[in-house]
């Protein structure tokens, strides 16, 4: 497998507190959707935060495109091509949709290129085009999530990491989020997804990773993860994959 991102046995936690991750590993292939599942407190969000530089990695290493990311700041990791959308969507509520998109391209030096990219994104997401001058904080949860995901595309990243994009959204809207995710993947963007709705997350992914108590228990093709009876019993509520 030609990995784009390799996480090797990392230990990480918040501040001086206990380690949340202790021996987590992960292999990310280019252009595919990877779904991390596991119970609450397994360390799924912590893993994404460690990769994007928000948390200090105490042991182990994260290598992206052959480059070690340990010790780098989030802005430096973003410049390498890794975008992260946290659970709270990380929007600027008092900025308009257009201004939020402009912030999405903050690291781009070419102003004209940035404005062109914003226009392209607005063209692809009609709901954002309609609300381009509206403050992000006044939009619905689904619209905010669409904006957060669309904003990552401004810089054409190599990897987009999404932390529970379906959180708090209506079922119909959730499917729209997965459709956007698939569209990203079809365009060659690698997606690393943390999803509480494990069944839905795995069904929309190529690769599955099972995390528990800060360790990686299993990783493999999403179909294999879905079909594994132990994983079905422990993490999928006993539901058999359709």
């Amino acid at each position: 497998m030609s990995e784009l991102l390799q996480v090797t046995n990392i230990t990480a936690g918040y501040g001086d507190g206990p380690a949340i991750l202790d021996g987590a590993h992960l292999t990310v292939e280019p252009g595919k959707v990877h779904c991390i599942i596991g119970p609450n407190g397994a360390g799924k969000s912590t893993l994404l935060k460690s990769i994007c530089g928000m948390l200090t990695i105490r042991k182990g290493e994260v290598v992206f495109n052959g480059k070690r990311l340990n010790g780098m700041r989030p802005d430096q990791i973003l410049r390498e091509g890794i975008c992260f959308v946290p659970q709270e969507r990380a929007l600027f509520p008092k900025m308009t949709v257009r201004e939020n998109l402009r912030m999405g391209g903050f690291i781009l030096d070419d102003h004209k290129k940035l404005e062109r990219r914003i226009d392209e994104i607005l063209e692809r997401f009609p709901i954002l085009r309609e609300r381009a001058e509206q403050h992000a904080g006044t939009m619905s949860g689904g619209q905010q999530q669409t904006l957060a995901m669309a904003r990552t595309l401004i810089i054409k990243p190599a990897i987009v990491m999404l932390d529970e994009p379906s959180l708090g959204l209506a079922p119909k809207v959730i499917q729209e989020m997965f459709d956007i995710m698939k569209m990203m993947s079809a365009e060659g963007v690698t997606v690393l997804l943390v999803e509480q709705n494990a069944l839905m997350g795995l069904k929309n992914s190529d690769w599955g990773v099972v995390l528990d108590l800060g360790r990686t228990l299993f990783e493999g093709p999403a179909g294999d993860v879905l079909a594994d009876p132990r994983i079905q019993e422990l993490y999928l509520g006993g539901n058999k994959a359709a």
Partner: protein
Amino acid sequence: MAAILQILILGLALGGVIALMGSGLSLVFGVMRIVNLAHPSLIIAGAYITYWAFKASGVDPILMLPVSAAIMAAIGVLLYRLMFERETNSVKYSEMTVLLTFALAMMVEGVLGGLFTNTQRVTSPDYATEAFFIGDVFIPKGQLYAGLVSLTIITALTLFLKYSRLGYAIRATTQNREAAELLGVNVNFISILAFAIGLGLAGAAGSLVSFVFSFFPAKHWEWVAMLMSVVVLGGMGSILGTVVAALLLSVVAAFVGTWIGATWSTMTFFLALFLILLIRPQGLFGEKPEMA
């Protein structure tokens, strides 16, 4: 009618200066969540820089404004790196910054007292004692110039925040520090920059204050409550709110001072602070941080 117009003009002119005094405090709170209790003492430091230049070589206070702003901005960079940078990840960050800025205010007062004694000072350019007359209404030139310069600086600051790349980064950091960092903003640099701008505004306000109010090192205790009421009423972190609140309270204070008594004028600010905290703690333009 002329009397009301007179009070209104005096209130608005002073309100412009108070808006500038409060805008740096508001900016620093918005970006870094630092309640800078030392801000008024740093305004007084700016006033003393201007006073010293005026006495030494007769430099006009308004011409000294950029110099005073630049000196205070440079001091801001040093202070931030020495005092606040190491605290940014502390779980008791807010409490620490209150204590640190309180200590800083005491230190600045002590240093200024040592250098200039506790005598009341004021710079006295010619226009500080002159006025324009329109019928029965007079407009003191000093207050008018100070108010206009203040509003010009605040307009420039607003345009900078609204349209420049760094302005975007400052606004983004104000609204969601973590999100700004995730989008490539070096939030530590932005914090240093915002603190420097905040203190630069204190320096600029100091130059104008030097000929509008008499001042002495301990004067900041009176101003800290006044500025807090302006910033809280406007909405902590909102520059527009600070301007509106400063103009509003100054005008009300001018009417109270004229009709009820000068000693009650300052009470307007304290009463406003008390009421706004009870009725609408987020202020006029402040919003709850939660997303819709």
